[in-house]
């Protein structure tokens, strides 16, 4: 499996921009700001992919007080989860990769935070996550998803009608002792029945500071579980550092918590956890490592505090969580692999794909004013010798999403391995602004068509085989069992250029190892599929 993952990501790295962008809403400006040499290989941590974190920023996600652009947030989540997973076939496929052994009978719990109903885990972000969760495996049942919190849902707009998914909204505040507990700081404390009944957990905290002393003065991924575990009573553990470290280190958490999504659309950086929004970072942070999430959250909070003349929050629990004996994750930003995903102002998508002998550029704007149009620039290396290859006039002032398209039919497709494009937005008064740069990895020869590893794999009932065609072609795709017997034909048809997902329904097939063999333009590729029950 590891080799296959490596192979898959290698293809995506070289040709993925081309392949992925033909099917997805946009590419993005994703930069690895700092990266250790895979720190998790040199030290063992309690949570997987320690230190790997995606930070997504959208300049127009927050429109005002209690006013968030659902479409922008969906876009942020989709881009972030694909970047974090390194899987670009679809956001749902990327998301599914964080749930090992996932099947449609498994149950997922989600812990948001709306202690402060003015600055809660935004319903728009929750909806974005639910939209993709329910697309996993070709249709993960919403009824297997439970959102639990010990504060009322209605005050923050959490309803199944808003979400459009019939998920379970559980007001989980009583914490009866039903025989399952988490041991924290010398006490066995009951925890949420919703989590107990789930196979996986998504932790969705909010960017807020806290008034708990100096060791625990942020309320992020760790503190959010004061609500998973009963924090109250005469021996309350609300501000008990040892307790929250023990909770995150518990086998319940390390075995179930597979993803942390920090909602940093709004922020409270002073006087939290209550109070009104004090800033709009317009970010979401995604990681499997709760320590990395809280460490990056600490940076965000302290940057806000510093710029407002306030001292830094120590939140020493983060550093203690990274150190032995806890070793839960990585707190040192220098050791993290930070994937920064950002978009230029107003330009919400900019993609470039090779299609039928030309490069097609597509972009969208969220709003335009005083915009004369866009000059399209091309470079062979992305750094020098940018040349103007076309101009697209603005459609006029707008506050609505606008779609643009440009075909570069003169692109030197046969001369380069890749080409680079950027937009130069020109104002009516002559001002200009450049977009980020997108790269088109060119498919140069007949070997350019490619079949990727199926997803999911292993699979229970259904799976999809991604297949990329650089041009129209006849695709012959067959399935064989481990003995080499022909099981069925999946496709024998002419198909247009682009990315295709060949669906394989195998409910009627016995468990075992199968091979899918694709023949396109006389060349054969095979992959191995594992069917389980």
């Amino acid at each position: 499996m590891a080799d296959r993952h490596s192979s898959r990501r290698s293809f995506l790295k070289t040709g993925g921009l081309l392949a992925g962008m033909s099917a997805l809403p946009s590419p993005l400006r994703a930069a690895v700001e700092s990266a250790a040499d895979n720190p998790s290989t040199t030290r063992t941590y309690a949570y997987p992919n320690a230190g790997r974190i995606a930070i997504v920023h959208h300049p127009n996600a927050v429109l005002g007080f209690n006013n968030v652009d659902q479409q922008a947030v969906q876009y942020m989540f989709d881009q972030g989860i694909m970047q974090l997973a390194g899987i670009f076939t679809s956001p749902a496929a990327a998301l599914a990769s964080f749930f090992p052994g996932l099947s449609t009978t498994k149950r997922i719990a989600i812990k948001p935070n709306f202690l402060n109903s003015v600055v809660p885990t935004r319903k728009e972000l929750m909806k974005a996550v639910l939209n993709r969760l329910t697309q996993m495996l070709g249709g993960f049942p919403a009824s297997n998803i439970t959102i639990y919190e010990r504060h009322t849902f209605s005050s923050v707009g959490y309803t199944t009608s808003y979400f459009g998914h019939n998920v379970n909204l559980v007001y989980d505040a009583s914490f009866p002792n039903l025989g399952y507990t988490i041991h924290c700081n010398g006490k066995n404390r009951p925890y949420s029945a919703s989590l107990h009944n789930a196979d996986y957990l998504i932790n969705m905290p909010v960017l807020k500071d806290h008034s708990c002393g100096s060791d625990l003065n942020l309320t992020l991924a760790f503190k959010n579980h004061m609500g998973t575990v009963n924090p109250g009573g005469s021996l309350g553990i609300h501000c008990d550092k040892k307790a929250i470290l023990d909770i995150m280190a518990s086998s319940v958490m390390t075995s179930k918590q597979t993803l942390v999504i920090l909602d940093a659309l709004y922020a409270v950086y002073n006087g939290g956890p209550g109070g009104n929004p004090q800033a709009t970072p317009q970010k979401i942070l995604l990681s499997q490592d709760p320590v990395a999430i809280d460490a990056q959250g600490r940076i965000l909070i302290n940057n806000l505090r510093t710029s407002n003349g306030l001292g830094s929050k120590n939140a020493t629990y983060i550093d203690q969580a990274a150190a032995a004996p806890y070793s839960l994750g990585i707190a040192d930003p220098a050791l993290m692999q930070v994937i920064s995903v950002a978009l230029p102002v107003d330009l919400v998508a900019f993609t470039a794909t090779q299609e039928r002998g030309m490069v097609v550029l597509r972009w969208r704007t969220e709003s335009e004013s005083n915009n004369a149009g866009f000059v399209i620039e091309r470079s062979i290396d992305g750094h020098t010798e940018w040349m103007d290859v076309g101009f697209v006039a603005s459609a006029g002032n707008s506050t609505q999403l606008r779609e643009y398209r440009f075909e570069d039919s003169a692109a030197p497709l046969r001369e380069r391995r890749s080409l680079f494009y950027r937009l130069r937005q020109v104002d009516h008064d002559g001002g200009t602004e450049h977009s980020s740069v997108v790269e088109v990895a060119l498919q140069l020869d007949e070997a350019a068509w490619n079949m990727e590893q199926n997803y999911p794999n292993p699979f229970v009932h259904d799976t999809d085989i991604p297949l990329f065609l650089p041009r129209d072609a006849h695709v012959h795709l067959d399935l064989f069992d481990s003995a080499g017997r022909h099981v069925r034909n999946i496709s024998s048809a002419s198909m247009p250029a682009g990315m295709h997902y060949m669906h394989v329904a195998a409910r009627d097939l016995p468990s075992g190892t199968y091979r899918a063999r694709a023949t396109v333009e006389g060349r054969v590729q095979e992959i191995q599929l594992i069917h389980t029950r």
Partner: protein
Amino acid sequence: MLFRTISSIVLMLACVTLAGCDKSDSGSNPDVLTITDVLPKENEISGWARISGTQWKATNPSELQAQINGGSELYTNHGFVEAAAQSYSGSVNAVSGVSCDIQVYDQGSESNANTVFDDPNNVFVNPITPANPPSAKAQIRKDLFSWTMKFVKGRYYVLLSILSSDDKAQDVLTVFANNVAGKIK
């Protein structure tokens, strides 16, 4: 007779502490005085109505934790006795539906209330001294979408916020603050 006299003295002392307590807002027993009596009543401040279901009261740390979770430590570390809160809805500069929240904390002593006010985790950024302040120890600040005020009067620490960034919102906060402060002697 003796019992009735002692009861009257206790009541008088309570009213000295919570001056202006209006018995009409004290539930079925008009002689019971609680911290909720300092909260402005329905339309006591013209144009501002109580939002139903938003009042809470806490008389011990556990009850306070149930309301504000770990945010309670700021108060329970410094002599917390009891607290009450209420939200109101009204207009600011012709914009209706603006909410204003008040939280009143009895910290047992003025010294404790001052400590809460000055706690490093409770510092106001760019604090403004309000015009017509409710007490000698009062600050107001503007946040992204709101104004917040804190003040100390006697053993009470009071926190008010209004969800409007309009400059006129700080006038509303000052009216609320002075109303509350006027009931605390």
